[in-house]
Protein backbone atom coordinates (compact mmCIF):
# COMPACT_ATOMS: atom_id res chain seq x y z
CA UNK A 1 0.00 0.00 0.00
CA UNK A 2 1.31 3.43 -0.95
CA UNK A 3 2.19 5.96 1.63
CA UNK A 4 0.04 9.05 1.03
CA UNK A 5 2.99 11.27 1.98
CA UNK A 6 5.15 9.71 -0.64
CA UNK A 7 2.87 10.36 -3.57
CA UNK A 8 2.46 13.90 -4.77
CA UNK A 9 -1.09 14.82 -5.70
CA UNK A 10 -2.08 13.70 -9.16
CA UNK A 11 0.93 11.41 -9.55
CA UNK A 12 -0.32 8.20 -8.06
CA UNK A 13 1.15 4.94 -9.38
CA UNK A 14 -0.69 1.61 -9.36
CA UNK A 15 -0.14 -0.19 -6.05
CA UNK A 16 2.44 -2.99 -5.90
CA UNK A 17 1.43 -6.24 -4.27
CA UNK A 18 3.56 -7.45 -1.35
CA UNK A 19 5.66 -4.35 -1.62
CA UNK A 20 7.36 -4.75 1.75
CA UNK A 21 8.33 -8.35 1.08
CA UNK A 22 9.68 -7.56 -2.35
CA UNK A 23 11.53 -4.54 -1.04
CA UNK A 24 13.21 -6.63 1.63
CA UNK A 25 14.04 -9.32 -0.91
CA UNK A 26 15.67 -6.68 -3.11
CA UNK A 27 17.69 -5.36 -0.20
CA UNK A 28 18.81 -8.82 0.84
CA UNK A 29 19.62 -9.72 -2.76
CA UNK A 30 21.74 -6.63 -3.30
CA UNK A 31 23.47 -7.12 0.05
CA UNK A 32 24.29 -10.70 -0.90
CA UNK A 33 25.52 -9.54 -4.29
CA UNK A 34 27.81 -6.98 -2.68
CA UNK A 35 29.04 -9.55 -0.19
CA UNK A 36 29.68 -12.08 -2.96
CA UNK A 37 31.60 -9.48 -4.96
CA UNK A 38 33.72 -8.57 -1.96
CA UNK A 39 34.45 -12.24 -1.22
CA UNK A 40 35.27 -12.90 -4.87
CA UNK A 41 37.74 -10.02 -4.97
CA UNK A 42 39.30 -11.21 -1.71
CA UNK A 43 39.53 -14.74 -3.09
CA UNK A 44 41.00 -13.44 -6.33
CA UNK A 45 43.64 -11.62 -4.34
CA UNK A 46 44.52 -14.81 -2.47
CA UNK A 47 43.16 -13.72 0.91
CA UNK A 48 41.93 -17.24 1.71
CA UNK A 49 45.11 -19.08 0.73
CA UNK A 50 47.99 -20.07 2.98
CA UNK A 51 51.04 -18.37 1.60
CA UNK A 52 54.76 -18.39 2.07
CA UNK A 53 57.11 -15.58 1.22
CA UNK A 54 60.03 -15.46 -1.14
CA UNK A 55 62.40 -12.50 -1.27
CA UNK A 56 64.07 -11.73 -4.57
CA UNK A 57 67.05 -9.41 -4.32
CA UNK A 58 67.74 -7.24 -7.35
CA UNK A 59 69.99 -4.30 -8.17
CA UNK A 60 67.06 -2.45 -9.61
CA UNK A 61 63.35 -2.93 -9.13
CA UNK A 62 62.37 -0.77 -12.07
CA UNK A 63 59.31 -2.15 -13.81
CA UNK A 64 58.26 -4.29 -10.87
CA UNK A 65 54.90 -3.32 -9.40
CA UNK A 66 52.98 -4.65 -6.46
CA UNK A 67 50.53 -7.28 -7.64
CA UNK A 68 52.49 -8.53 -10.64
CA UNK A 69 52.91 -12.26 -11.11
CA UNK A 70 55.83 -14.61 -10.63
CA UNK A 71 55.41 -17.24 -13.31
CA UNK A 72 56.68 -20.79 -13.61
CA UNK A 73 56.39 -22.39 -17.05
CA UNK A 74 54.02 -19.62 -18.02
CA UNK A 75 51.67 -20.16 -15.06
CA UNK A 76 51.44 -17.57 -12.29
CA UNK A 77 52.50 -19.12 -8.99
CA UNK A 78 53.12 -16.04 -6.91
CA UNK A 79 52.39 -12.35 -6.63
CA UNK A 80 54.57 -9.41 -5.66
CA UNK A 81 53.41 -8.38 -2.20
CA UNK A 82 55.68 -5.42 -1.59
CA UNK A 83 58.98 -3.91 -2.70
CA UNK A 84 61.54 -2.66 -0.20
CA UNK A 85 64.91 -0.99 -0.38
CA UNK A 86 67.31 -3.11 1.65
CA UNK A 87 70.05 -1.84 3.96
CA UNK A 88 72.63 -2.84 1.32
CA UNK A 89 71.00 -0.58 -1.28
CA UNK A 90 69.44 -3.44 -3.17
CA UNK A 91 65.79 -3.85 -3.97
CA UNK A 92 64.00 -6.60 -2.06
CA UNK A 93 60.97 -7.88 -3.93
CA UNK A 94 58.78 -9.75 -1.46
CA UNK A 95 56.62 -12.31 -3.23
CA UNK A 96 53.69 -14.17 -1.71
CA UNK A 97 53.57 -17.73 -3.03
CA UNK A 98 50.52 -19.86 -2.23
CA UNK A 99 51.60 -23.01 -0.40
CA UNK A 100 49.79 -25.16 -2.95
CA UNK A 101 52.08 -23.77 -5.69
CA UNK A 102 55.25 -23.54 -3.61
CA UNK A 103 56.33 -27.08 -4.53
CA UNK A 104 57.42 -25.80 -7.93
CA UNK A 105 60.14 -23.77 -6.24
CA UNK A 106 63.23 -25.72 -5.17
CA UNK A 107 66.47 -24.74 -3.53
CA UNK A 108 68.14 -24.91 -6.93
CA UNK A 109 65.53 -22.72 -8.64
CA UNK A 110 66.70 -19.74 -10.65
CA UNK A 111 64.74 -16.49 -10.81
CA UNK A 112 64.88 -13.98 -13.64
CA UNK A 113 63.49 -10.52 -14.17
CA UNK A 114 63.06 -9.60 -17.81
CA UNK A 115 62.06 -6.21 -19.11
CA UNK A 116 60.23 -6.47 -22.39
CA UNK A 117 59.66 -3.86 -25.05
CA UNK A 118 55.88 -4.31 -24.99
CA UNK A 119 54.20 -5.02 -21.69
CA UNK A 120 55.42 -5.04 -18.17
CA UNK A 121 58.53 -6.57 -16.65
CA UNK A 122 58.24 -10.31 -16.07
CA UNK A 123 59.40 -12.31 -13.08
CA UNK A 124 60.06 -15.94 -13.92
CA UNK A 125 61.14 -18.99 -11.94
CA UNK A 126 63.00 -21.95 -13.41
CA UNK A 127 63.32 -25.27 -11.55
CA UNK A 128 65.19 -27.89 -13.51
CA UNK A 129 65.81 -30.25 -10.59
CA UNK A 130 62.42 -30.94 -9.11
CA UNK A 131 63.93 -33.60 -6.81
CA UNK A 132 65.84 -30.96 -4.85
CA UNK A 133 64.52 -29.87 -1.43
CA UNK A 134 61.65 -27.38 -1.58
CA UNK A 135 62.38 -23.70 -1.11
CA UNK A 136 61.88 -22.76 2.56
CA UNK A 137 59.54 -20.01 3.71
CA UNK A 138 61.21 -16.59 3.68
CA UNK A 139 64.05 -17.70 1.42
CA UNK A 140 66.13 -14.99 -0.25
CA UNK A 141 67.38 -15.39 -3.78
CA UNK A 142 69.24 -13.12 -6.14
CA UNK A 143 67.25 -12.46 -9.28
CA UNK A 144 68.99 -12.47 -12.65
CA UNK A 145 68.11 -9.37 -14.61
CA UNK A 146 67.75 -8.98 -18.35
CA UNK A 147 66.42 -6.04 -20.24
CA UNK A 148 65.38 -6.34 -23.86
CA UNK A 149 65.20 -2.56 -24.20
CA UNK A 150 68.77 -2.22 -23.00
CA UNK A 151 69.88 -4.58 -25.75
CA UNK A 152 68.32 -2.44 -28.48
CA UNK A 153 71.17 0.10 -28.80
CA UNK A 154 73.73 -2.72 -29.02
CA UNK A 155 71.53 -4.52 -31.51
CA UNK A 156 71.14 -1.37 -33.58
CA UNK A 157 74.90 -0.80 -33.60
CA UNK A 158 75.47 -4.37 -34.75
CA UNK A 159 72.75 -4.09 -37.35
CA UNK A 160 74.31 -0.85 -38.62
CA UNK A 161 77.69 -2.56 -39.02
CA UNK A 162 76.01 -5.48 -40.69
CA UNK A 163 74.16 -3.24 -43.10
CA UNK A 164 77.39 -1.34 -43.88
CA UNK A 165 79.15 -4.61 -44.58
CA UNK A 166 76.30 -5.80 -46.74
CA UNK A 167 76.32 -2.52 -48.62
CA UNK A 168 80.06 -2.81 -49.18
CA UNK A 169 79.67 -6.42 -50.28
CA UNK A 170 76.85 -5.71 -52.67
CA UNK A 171 78.33 -2.50 -54.14
CA UNK A 172 78.80 -2.42 -57.91
CA UNK A 173 82.56 -2.65 -57.70
CA UNK A 174 82.71 -4.98 -54.71
CA UNK A 175 84.71 -8.18 -54.80
CA UNK A 176 81.59 -10.26 -54.31
CA UNK A 177 79.82 -8.56 -57.15
CA UNK A 178 82.83 -8.97 -59.47
CA UNK A 179 83.13 -12.61 -58.47
CA UNK A 180 79.49 -13.19 -59.19
CA UNK A 181 79.88 -11.53 -62.57
CA UNK A 182 82.85 -13.75 -63.31
CA UNK A 183 80.84 -16.77 -62.24
CA UNK A 184 78.07 -15.66 -64.55
CA UNK A 185 80.51 -15.28 -67.44
CA UNK A 186 82.01 -18.67 -66.68
CA UNK A 187 78.59 -20.26 -66.58
CA UNK A 188 77.71 -18.70 -69.90
CA UNK A 189 80.91 -20.06 -71.39
CA UNK A 190 80.26 -23.48 -69.86
CA UNK A 191 76.94 -23.46 -71.64
CA UNK A 192 78.63 -22.27 -74.85
CA UNK A 193 79.80 -24.45 -77.75
CA UNK A 194 83.30 -24.95 -76.34
CA UNK A 195 82.04 -25.97 -72.85
CA UNK A 196 84.50 -26.56 -70.04
CA UNK A 197 87.44 -26.60 -72.44
CA UNK A 198 86.60 -23.13 -73.48
CA UNK A 199 86.52 -22.10 -69.82
CA UNK A 200 89.91 -23.70 -69.19
CA UNK A 201 91.80 -22.61 -72.32
CA UNK A 202 89.92 -19.61 -73.55
CA UNK A 203 89.17 -18.82 -77.17
CA UNK A 204 92.71 -19.49 -78.59
CA UNK A 205 92.27 -21.71 -81.69
CA UNK A 206 95.95 -22.74 -81.77
CA UNK A 207 95.81 -24.00 -78.24
CA UNK A 208 92.67 -25.90 -79.00
CA UNK A 209 94.34 -27.50 -81.97
CA UNK A 210 97.36 -28.41 -79.89
CA UNK A 211 95.10 -29.83 -77.31
CA UNK A 212 93.42 -31.97 -79.95
CA UNK A 213 96.81 -33.23 -81.14
CA UNK A 214 97.80 -33.97 -77.56
CA UNK A 215 94.65 -35.91 -77.07
CA UNK A 216 95.31 -37.95 -80.22
CA UNK A 217 98.83 -38.72 -79.08
CA UNK A 218 97.58 -39.60 -75.67
CA UNK A 219 95.13 -42.00 -77.25
CA UNK A 220 97.95 -43.61 -79.23
CA UNK A 221 100.05 -43.82 -76.13
CA UNK A 222 97.24 -45.46 -74.28
CA UNK A 223 96.88 -48.01 -77.14
CA UNK A 224 100.59 -48.83 -76.89
CA UNK A 225 100.37 -49.03 -73.18
CA UNK A 226 97.55 -51.47 -73.65
CA UNK A 227 99.79 -53.76 -75.78
CA UNK A 228 102.56 -53.39 -73.25
CA UNK A 229 100.26 -54.41 -70.50
CA UNK A 230 99.22 -57.49 -72.48
CA UNK A 231 102.88 -58.47 -72.88
CA UNK A 232 103.51 -57.89 -69.24
CA UNK A 233 100.58 -60.22 -68.56
CA UNK A 234 102.29 -62.96 -70.65
CA UNK A 235 105.58 -62.47 -68.86
CA UNK A 236 103.86 -62.63 -65.55
CA UNK A 237 102.20 -65.92 -66.55
CA UNK A 238 105.54 -67.37 -67.56
CA UNK A 239 107.21 -66.20 -64.38
CA UNK A 240 104.42 -67.77 -62.47
CA UNK A 241 105.00 -71.09 -64.16
CA UNK A 242 108.74 -70.81 -63.63
CA UNK A 243 108.46 -69.94 -60.02
CA UNK A 244 105.49 -71.94 -58.86
CA UNK A 245 105.43 -74.74 -61.48
CA UNK A 246 106.30 -78.38 -60.87
CA UNK A 247 110.06 -78.04 -61.56
CA UNK A 248 109.92 -74.43 -60.58
CA UNK A 249 112.11 -72.19 -58.57
CA UNK A 250 110.17 -72.77 -55.40
CA UNK A 251 110.66 -76.57 -55.51
CA UNK A 252 114.37 -76.24 -56.14
CA UNK A 253 114.67 -73.74 -53.36
CA UNK A 254 112.96 -76.15 -51.01
CA UNK A 255 115.52 -78.92 -51.94
CA UNK A 256 118.37 -76.47 -51.48
CA UNK A 257 117.08 -75.59 -48.05
CA UNK A 258 116.99 -79.33 -47.13
CA UNK A 259 120.59 -79.68 -48.23
CA UNK A 260 121.51 -76.58 -46.28
CA UNK A 261 120.00 -78.23 -43.18
CA UNK A 262 122.35 -81.25 -43.68
CA UNK A 263 125.33 -78.97 -44.14
CA UNK A 264 124.47 -77.15 -40.98
CA UNK A 265 124.39 -80.51 -39.11
CA UNK A 266 127.87 -81.32 -40.39
CA UNK A 267 129.09 -77.90 -39.36
CA UNK A 268 127.64 -78.47 -35.87
CA UNK A 269 129.62 -81.80 -35.56
CA UNK A 270 132.82 -80.11 -36.73
CA UNK A 271 132.35 -77.38 -34.19
CA UNK A 272 131.99 -80.00 -31.44
CA UNK A 273 135.36 -81.45 -32.47
CA UNK A 274 136.92 -78.01 -32.41
CA UNK A 275 135.49 -77.61 -28.96
CA UNK A 276 137.25 -80.76 -27.74
CA UNK A 277 140.53 -79.53 -29.27
CA UNK A 278 140.13 -76.26 -27.51
CA UNK A 279 139.60 -78.05 -24.21
CA UNK A 280 142.83 -79.94 -24.70
CA UNK A 281 144.64 -76.70 -25.51
CA UNK A 282 143.26 -75.28 -22.33
CA UNK A 283 144.78 -78.21 -20.35
CA UNK A 284 148.15 -77.63 -22.01
CA UNK A 285 147.96 -73.97 -21.11
CA UNK A 286 147.30 -74.81 -17.44
CA UNK A 287 150.28 -77.16 -17.40
CA UNK A 288 152.45 -74.45 -18.86
CA UNK A 289 151.26 -72.03 -16.15
CA UNK A 290 152.34 -74.56 -13.45
CA UNK A 291 155.77 -74.99 -15.06
CA UNK A 292 156.13 -71.23 -15.13
CA UNK A 293 155.53 -71.08 -11.34
CA UNK A 294 158.21 -73.79 -10.79
CA UNK A 295 160.67 -71.69 -12.79
CA UNK A 296 159.97 -68.79 -10.38
CA UNK A 297 160.91 -70.92 -7.40
CA UNK A 298 164.09 -72.06 -9.15
CA UNK A 299 165.01 -68.46 -9.90
CA UNK A 300 164.58 -67.58 -6.20
CA UNK A 301 166.86 -70.34 -5.17
CA UNK A 302 169.53 -69.26 -7.70
CA UNK A 303 169.26 -65.67 -6.46
CA UNK A 304 169.72 -66.90 -2.82
CA UNK A 305 172.82 -68.90 -3.80
CA UNK A 306 174.26 -65.85 -5.60
CA UNK A 307 173.72 -63.65 -2.56
CA UNK A 308 175.51 -66.26 -0.44
CA UNK A 309 178.45 -66.31 -2.88
CA UNK A 310 178.58 -62.51 -2.89
CA UNK A 311 178.61 -62.41 0.89
CA UNK A 312 181.42 -65.06 0.79
CA UNK A 313 183.54 -63.02 -1.61
CA UNK A 314 183.00 -59.91 0.49
CA UNK A 315 184.21 -61.87 3.49
CA UNK A 316 187.34 -63.08 1.64
CA UNK A 317 188.04 -59.49 0.45
CA UNK A 318 187.79 -58.27 3.99
CA UNK A 319 190.17 -61.02 5.12
CA UNK A 320 192.39 -60.74 2.05
CA UNK A 321 193.20 -57.04 1.90
CA UNK A 322 196.12 -57.23 -0.48
CA UNK A 323 194.32 -58.68 -3.22
CA UNK A 324 193.95 -56.20 -6.04
CA UNK A 325 191.77 -58.06 -8.19
CA UNK A 326 188.38 -57.78 -6.67
CA UNK A 327 186.68 -59.06 -9.68
CA UNK A 328 184.75 -62.13 -9.00
CA UNK A 329 184.54 -64.56 -11.77
CA UNK A 330 181.66 -66.73 -11.74
CA UNK A 331 181.90 -70.17 -13.19
Amino acid sequence: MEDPIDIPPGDAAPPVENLDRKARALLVGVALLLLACALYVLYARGAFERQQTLVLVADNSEGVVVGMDLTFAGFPIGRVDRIELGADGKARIVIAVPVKDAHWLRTSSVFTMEGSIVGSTKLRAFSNLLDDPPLPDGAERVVLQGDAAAEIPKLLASVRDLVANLTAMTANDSALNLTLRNVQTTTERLNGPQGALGVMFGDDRETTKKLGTTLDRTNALIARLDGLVKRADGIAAKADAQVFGEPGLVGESRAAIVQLGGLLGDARATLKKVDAVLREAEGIASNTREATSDLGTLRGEVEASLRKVESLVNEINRKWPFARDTELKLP
Partner: protein
Amino acid sequence: MDLPASLHAAPRRGADAVRLWLLGWWQILLFGAHVSVLALAPSSWRRAQRHRIVRRIYLTTRPLLPGFIVLSALVGVVIIRIVLVTSQSYGLSRYAVEVLVRTLVLELIPLSAALFVAVRTTFADGDRVRAMRAARAFEDMLGRGIDPTRDLVLPRVVAGMFAVITLAVASGVVTLVLAYLLVYGFQSWGLPGFTRTVGQVFNPVIALIFALKTVAFSLAVSVIPMVTTPREKLAEALRINADLTRLARLLAVLLAVEVLSLIGNYY
Protein backbone atom coordinates in the same frame (compact mmCIF):
# COMPACT_ATOMS: atom_id res chain seq x y z
CA MET B 1 15.41 30.19 -0.61
CA ASP B 2 13.83 33.20 -2.27
CA LEU B 3 15.67 34.83 -5.05
CA PRO B 4 16.92 38.36 -4.31
CA ALA B 5 14.92 40.98 -6.15
CA SER B 6 18.04 42.27 -7.86
CA LEU B 7 18.59 38.90 -9.51
CA HIS B 8 15.21 38.68 -11.18
CA ALA B 9 16.73 40.45 -14.11
CA ALA B 10 19.56 38.95 -16.14
CA PRO B 11 22.93 39.49 -14.40
CA ARG B 12 24.65 42.30 -16.18
CA ARG B 13 27.92 42.14 -14.27
CA GLY B 14 30.37 39.28 -14.02
CA ALA B 15 30.39 39.52 -10.26
CA ASP B 16 26.66 38.75 -10.16
CA ALA B 17 27.17 35.65 -12.27
CA VAL B 18 29.96 34.40 -10.05
CA ARG B 19 27.87 35.09 -6.98
CA LEU B 20 24.98 33.14 -8.43
CA TRP B 21 27.27 30.28 -9.39
CA LEU B 22 28.83 30.05 -5.94
CA LEU B 23 25.44 30.37 -4.29
CA GLY B 24 24.12 27.47 -6.32
CA TRP B 25 26.98 25.17 -5.36
CA TRP B 26 26.69 26.23 -1.77
CA GLN B 27 22.99 25.32 -1.74
CA ILE B 28 23.77 21.92 -3.19
CA LEU B 29 26.46 21.26 -0.61
CA LEU B 30 24.19 22.45 2.15
CA PHE B 31 21.34 20.27 0.99
CA GLY B 32 23.67 17.27 0.62
CA ALA B 33 24.94 17.78 4.16
CA HIS B 34 21.36 18.16 5.41
CA VAL B 35 20.27 14.93 3.80
CA SER B 36 23.41 13.11 4.98
CA VAL B 37 22.81 14.17 8.56
CA LEU B 38 19.23 13.02 8.27
CA ALA B 39 20.30 9.73 6.75
CA LEU B 40 22.71 9.09 9.59
CA ALA B 41 20.27 10.17 12.30
CA PRO B 42 18.64 7.25 14.13
CA SER B 43 15.29 9.06 14.04
CA SER B 44 15.22 8.65 10.26
CA TRP B 45 15.34 4.88 10.63
CA ARG B 46 12.38 4.36 12.88
CA ARG B 47 10.09 1.57 11.83
CA ALA B 48 7.60 3.63 9.82
CA GLN B 49 10.36 5.66 8.24
CA ARG B 50 12.38 2.57 7.46
CA HIS B 51 9.43 0.99 5.70
CA ARG B 52 8.96 4.13 3.68
CA ILE B 53 12.62 4.15 2.61
CA VAL B 54 12.66 0.44 1.79
CA ARG B 55 9.54 0.76 -0.32
CA ARG B 56 10.96 3.76 -2.14
CA ILE B 57 14.17 1.84 -2.78
CA TYR B 58 12.21 -0.99 -4.34
CA LEU B 59 10.01 1.32 -6.40
CA THR B 60 13.07 3.14 -7.70
CA THR B 61 15.43 0.25 -8.32
CA ARG B 62 13.24 -2.59 -9.48
CA PRO B 63 11.96 -0.97 -12.68
CA LEU B 64 15.47 0.08 -13.69
CA LEU B 65 17.27 -3.17 -13.03
CA PRO B 66 16.26 -5.42 -15.99
CA GLY B 67 16.45 -2.66 -18.57
CA PHE B 68 19.83 -1.44 -17.49
CA ILE B 69 21.30 -4.94 -17.20
CA VAL B 70 20.12 -5.83 -20.70
CA LEU B 71 21.37 -2.54 -22.09
CA SER B 72 24.75 -2.74 -20.40
CA ALA B 73 25.07 -6.39 -21.48
CA LEU B 74 24.45 -5.48 -25.12
CA VAL B 75 26.86 -2.57 -25.07
CA GLY B 76 29.30 -4.67 -23.05
CA VAL B 77 29.29 -7.48 -25.62
CA VAL B 78 30.07 -5.00 -28.37
CA ILE B 79 32.90 -3.39 -26.43
CA ILE B 80 34.31 -6.73 -25.26
CA ARG B 81 34.29 -8.00 -28.82
CA ILE B 82 36.03 -4.87 -30.11
CA VAL B 83 38.70 -5.07 -27.40
CA LEU B 84 39.26 -8.80 -27.99
CA VAL B 85 39.56 -8.52 -31.75
CA THR B 86 41.83 -5.50 -31.51
CA SER B 87 44.07 -7.08 -28.89
CA GLN B 88 44.28 -10.31 -30.88
CA SER B 89 45.22 -8.44 -34.05
CA TYR B 90 48.10 -6.83 -32.17
CA GLY B 91 49.08 -10.07 -30.40
CA LEU B 92 48.17 -8.62 -27.01
CA SER B 93 45.22 -10.85 -26.14
CA ARG B 94 46.71 -11.67 -22.73
CA TYR B 95 46.02 -8.08 -21.72
CA ALA B 96 42.44 -8.11 -22.99
CA VAL B 97 40.79 -9.25 -19.75
CA GLU B 98 42.63 -6.65 -17.72
CA VAL B 99 41.71 -3.90 -20.18
CA LEU B 100 38.07 -5.00 -20.12
CA VAL B 101 37.88 -5.03 -16.34
CA ARG B 102 39.53 -1.65 -16.10
CA THR B 103 37.50 0.09 -18.80
CA LEU B 104 34.10 -1.52 -18.39
CA VAL B 105 33.73 -2.54 -14.76
CA LEU B 106 35.79 0.22 -13.19
CA GLU B 107 34.94 3.19 -15.38
CA LEU B 108 32.12 2.92 -17.87
CA ILE B 109 29.51 0.95 -15.97
CA PRO B 110 29.37 3.11 -12.80
CA LEU B 111 29.20 6.25 -14.95
CA SER B 112 26.46 4.89 -17.18
CA ALA B 113 24.54 3.57 -14.15
CA ALA B 114 24.63 7.02 -12.57
CA LEU B 115 23.43 8.70 -15.75
CA PHE B 116 20.73 6.05 -16.25
CA VAL B 117 19.36 6.54 -12.75
CA ALA B 118 19.52 10.32 -13.11
CA VAL B 119 17.64 10.40 -16.39
CA ARG B 120 15.06 7.74 -15.48
CA THR B 121 14.36 8.49 -11.83
CA THR B 122 16.07 11.20 -9.84
CA PHE B 123 15.39 14.03 -12.29
CA ALA B 124 11.70 13.11 -12.23
CA ASP B 125 11.77 12.88 -8.44
CA GLY B 126 13.49 16.24 -8.26
CA ASP B 127 10.76 17.76 -10.44
CA ARG B 128 8.07 16.42 -8.08
CA VAL B 129 9.86 17.68 -4.99
CA ARG B 130 10.41 21.08 -6.51
CA ALA B 131 6.81 21.20 -7.67
CA MET B 132 5.60 20.38 -4.17
CA ARG B 133 7.85 23.04 -2.76
CA ALA B 134 6.57 25.57 -5.28
CA ALA B 135 2.98 24.65 -4.36
CA ARG B 136 3.76 25.31 -0.71
CA ALA B 137 3.06 21.65 0.06
CA PHE B 138 6.08 21.53 2.36
CA GLU B 139 4.59 24.20 4.59
CA ASP B 140 1.30 22.26 4.78
CA MET B 141 3.16 19.10 5.73
CA LEU B 142 5.16 20.92 8.37
CA GLY B 143 1.88 22.29 9.66
CA ARG B 144 0.61 18.70 9.96
CA GLY B 145 3.73 17.74 11.89
CA ILE B 146 5.46 15.96 9.00
CA ASP B 147 9.05 16.77 8.12
CA PRO B 148 9.00 16.78 4.30
CA THR B 149 12.78 16.54 3.99
CA ARG B 150 12.90 13.46 6.18
CA ASP B 151 9.72 11.81 4.94
CA LEU B 152 9.66 12.85 1.32
CA VAL B 153 13.15 13.80 0.14
CA LEU B 154 15.37 11.45 2.16
CA PRO B 155 13.71 8.23 0.88
CA ARG B 156 14.15 9.45 -2.69
CA VAL B 157 17.79 10.36 -2.13
CA VAL B 158 18.56 7.04 -0.45
CA ALA B 159 16.66 5.17 -3.14
CA GLY B 160 18.58 6.97 -5.87
CA MET B 161 21.90 6.14 -4.22
CA PHE B 162 20.87 2.53 -3.76
CA ALA B 163 19.76 2.28 -7.37
CA VAL B 164 23.09 3.58 -8.69
CA ILE B 165 25.10 1.19 -6.52
CA THR B 166 22.87 -1.76 -7.36
CA LEU B 167 22.91 -1.14 -11.08
CA ALA B 168 26.69 -0.65 -11.08
CA VAL B 169 27.38 -3.84 -9.15
CA ALA B 170 24.84 -6.00 -10.99
CA SER B 171 26.00 -4.80 -14.40
CA GLY B 172 29.60 -5.22 -13.38
CA VAL B 173 28.97 -8.84 -12.48
CA VAL B 174 27.10 -9.46 -15.72
CA THR B 175 29.87 -7.82 -17.71
CA LEU B 176 32.52 -9.93 -15.97
CA VAL B 177 30.57 -13.08 -16.82
CA LEU B 178 30.16 -11.96 -20.43
CA ALA B 179 33.85 -11.12 -20.68
CA TYR B 180 34.79 -14.58 -19.42
CA LEU B 181 32.39 -16.28 -21.81
CA LEU B 182 33.60 -14.29 -24.80
CA VAL B 183 37.27 -14.85 -23.97
CA TYR B 184 37.20 -18.51 -22.85
CA GLY B 185 33.82 -19.77 -24.08
CA PHE B 186 31.72 -22.16 -22.03
CA GLN B 187 34.77 -23.76 -20.45
CA SER B 188 35.93 -23.73 -16.87
CA TRP B 189 39.70 -24.02 -17.46
CA GLY B 190 40.16 -20.28 -17.74
CA LEU B 191 38.60 -19.48 -14.36
CA PRO B 192 41.83 -19.46 -12.30
CA GLY B 193 43.61 -17.14 -14.72
CA PHE B 194 40.55 -14.91 -15.08
CA THR B 195 40.11 -14.72 -11.31
CA ARG B 196 43.76 -13.93 -10.90
CA THR B 197 43.54 -11.07 -13.40
CA VAL B 198 40.46 -9.66 -11.67
CA GLY B 199 42.31 -9.90 -8.37
CA GLN B 200 45.28 -8.07 -9.85
CA VAL B 201 43.08 -5.23 -11.06
CA PHE B 202 41.16 -4.90 -7.80
CA ASN B 203 44.08 -4.13 -5.54
CA PRO B 204 43.12 -2.41 -2.27
CA VAL B 205 43.64 1.12 -3.57
CA ILE B 206 41.65 0.62 -6.75
CA ALA B 207 38.87 -1.22 -4.90
CA LEU B 208 38.60 1.63 -2.40
CA ILE B 209 38.59 4.27 -5.14
CA PHE B 210 35.97 2.27 -7.05
CA ALA B 211 33.73 2.13 -3.97
CA LEU B 212 34.19 5.83 -3.18
CA LYS B 213 33.58 6.80 -6.79
CA THR B 214 30.36 4.81 -7.00
CA VAL B 215 29.11 6.32 -3.74
CA ALA B 216 30.05 9.82 -4.95
CA PHE B 217 28.23 9.21 -8.26
CA SER B 218 25.15 8.00 -6.44
CA LEU B 219 25.20 10.99 -4.08
CA ALA B 220 25.58 13.45 -6.93
CA VAL B 221 22.82 11.81 -8.94
CA SER B 222 20.47 11.79 -5.96
CA VAL B 223 21.15 15.24 -4.50
CA ILE B 224 21.72 17.60 -7.43
CA PRO B 225 18.28 17.17 -9.07
CA MET B 226 16.54 17.88 -5.77
CA VAL B 227 17.96 21.38 -5.39
CA THR B 228 16.79 24.45 -7.24
CA THR B 229 19.71 26.82 -7.47
CA PRO B 230 19.38 30.60 -8.00
CA ARG B 231 20.56 30.29 -11.58
CA GLU B 232 17.84 27.74 -12.29
CA LYS B 233 15.24 29.99 -10.71
CA LEU B 234 16.51 32.75 -12.92
CA ALA B 235 16.37 30.46 -15.92
CA GLU B 236 12.80 29.47 -15.11
CA ALA B 237 11.93 33.12 -14.71
CA LEU B 238 13.42 33.78 -18.13
CA ARG B 239 11.48 30.75 -19.52
CA ILE B 240 14.70 28.82 -20.22
CA ASN B 241 14.72 25.06 -19.63
CA ALA B 242 16.28 24.71 -16.18
CA ASP B 243 16.59 20.92 -16.52
CA LEU B 244 19.41 21.41 -19.00
CA THR B 245 21.25 23.54 -16.46
CA ARG B 246 20.76 20.87 -13.81
CA LEU B 247 21.91 18.15 -16.19
CA ALA B 248 25.00 20.14 -17.09
CA ARG B 249 25.74 20.61 -13.40
CA LEU B 250 25.30 16.91 -12.77
CA LEU B 251 27.55 16.03 -15.71
CA ALA B 252 30.21 18.41 -14.45
CA VAL B 253 30.14 16.78 -11.04
CA LEU B 254 30.26 13.26 -12.49
CA LEU B 255 33.14 14.25 -14.73
CA ALA B 256 35.04 15.76 -11.82
CA VAL B 257 34.56 12.59 -9.74
CA GLU B 258 35.63 10.45 -12.68
CA VAL B 259 38.76 12.52 -13.26
CA LEU B 260 39.63 12.39 -9.57
CA SER B 261 39.20 8.60 -9.53
CA LEU B 262 41.40 8.26 -12.62
CA ILE B 263 44.06 10.38 -10.97
CA GLY B 264 43.83 8.20 -7.88
CA ASN B 265 44.00 5.00 -9.90
CA TYR B 266 46.76 5.80 -12.32
CA TYR B 267 48.98 8.45 -10.71
